[in-house]
């Protein structure tokens, strides 16, 4: 009995210390004298690796998500004879919810796991330590550009996802199922508000990008430097990122809908 309570206590303590360490890690990564001229090429390279290379999967899944929402929405709205509202349905559900969440999940799977594995392998092969020996701060040279790259690209990917998904919905709704193009766009425009819907979707994208890259670089930096440890850290990145994204999405939606 006492042992079980002890085990529970240990879990709690480990959780708190992990959280504290990741917070310290984040603050040491972010709070530093900016060296823009030197960090900029590193950042560009990482934006290429994290953002541009994720573009294909984001665009393809955005297109298919939009088409599926269009198809499903059409058949439901058709029962009420309200197929003109299809544009509104697609735009609101994509911009508010689907685009930030699905982009973040794909981002965690595509880019987050790669970040973790890369940094973890650098740690396992003692590249990070040798950098410290040479007087180069690995947090500045390795972690910081990756973190900023994820933070910057995630909202951009989410916006691109929205636009492509709405185009996919347009393809299915207007070109295939024959909804009137004029009412498709005008109903969409009258119901979607720039500040309430699109800006809030972008805010979600920014928050998810922050959380996903934070988890990814911390898991990589904190990994047990063995082959097994890297595997576990990569798994943890995807699991934690997905759970954090879904949980935070609920909280953010509650805050945004509740009118603060």
């Amino acid at each position, binding site marked *: 009995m006492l042992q079980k309570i002890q085990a529970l206590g240990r879990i709690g303590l480990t959780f708190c210390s992990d959280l504290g360490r990741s917070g310290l890690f984040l603050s040491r990564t972010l709070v530093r004298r900016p060296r823009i001229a030197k960090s900029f090429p590193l950042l560009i*390279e990482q934006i290429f690796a994290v953002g541009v290379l994720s573009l294909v999967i984001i665009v393809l899944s955005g297109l298919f998500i939009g088409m599926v929402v269009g198809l499903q929405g059409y058949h439901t709205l058709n029962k009420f004879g309200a197929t003109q509202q299809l544009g509104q349905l697609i735009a609101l559900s994509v*911009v508010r919810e689907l685009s930030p969440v699905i982009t973040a999940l794909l981002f965690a799977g595509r880019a987050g796991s790669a970040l973790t594995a890369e940094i973890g392998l650098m740690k396992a092969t003692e590249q990070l330590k040798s950098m410290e020996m040479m007087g180069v701060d690995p947090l500045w040279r390795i972690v910081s550009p990756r973190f900023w790259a994820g933070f910057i*690209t995630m909202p951009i990917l989410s*916006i691109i996802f929205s636009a492509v998904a709405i185009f996919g919905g347009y393809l299915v709704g207007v070109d295939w199922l024959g909804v009137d193009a004029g009412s498709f766009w005008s109903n969409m425009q009258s119901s979607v*508000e720039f500040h309430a819907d699109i800006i809030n979707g972008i805010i979600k994208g920014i928050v998810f990008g922050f959380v996903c890259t934070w988890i990814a670089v911390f898991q990589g930096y904190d990994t047990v430097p063995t082959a097994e440890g890297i595997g576990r850290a990569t798994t943890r990145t995807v699991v934690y990122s997905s759970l954090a994204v879904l949980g935070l999405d609920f909280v953010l939606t509650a805050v945004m809908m509740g009118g603060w």
Partner: protein
Amino acid sequence: MRERSIEIIVGLFMLAGVLALLILALKVSGLSNYVSTGGYTVTADFDNVGDLKVRAPVTMSGVKVGEVTGIGLNTTTFKAVVTMQINPDQNKIPTDSSASIYTQGLLGSNYVNLRPGFDDTYLKQGSVIHDTHPALILEDLIGQFLFSIKNSGSSNSSKSNT
């Protein structure tokens, strides 16, 4: 060389993001409709505005000519004061036009409809529309309907008694 091509590709990526945001802003949310194009404001006092919201369209024969910019309460007459901005090219609306609040479809949102009058003078900045028809409240309508049924029923029964 490789450095340069990466920079170009990242630049294109950023441009794609900005372009997508522009599409969302202009095509999806119709932000351009909300950019104030000038025009003049007129007010109208309604007995009841129902579910009218700011930014609701102001139409004339079904064509949008402006939008509602403010809804307030006149504290002396206790009427709702609706401020409307009319597009600048619609400057030939007679002063004796009437304003009514309608509903789009059965479940749609409310909007203001202007019915033109016959006056030779036209509405201008700060004009007040005097002839107004309040929003139709469904509950009131049902109440009146039930009341009239009850009345007609009692008159029938009194007739049969006599």
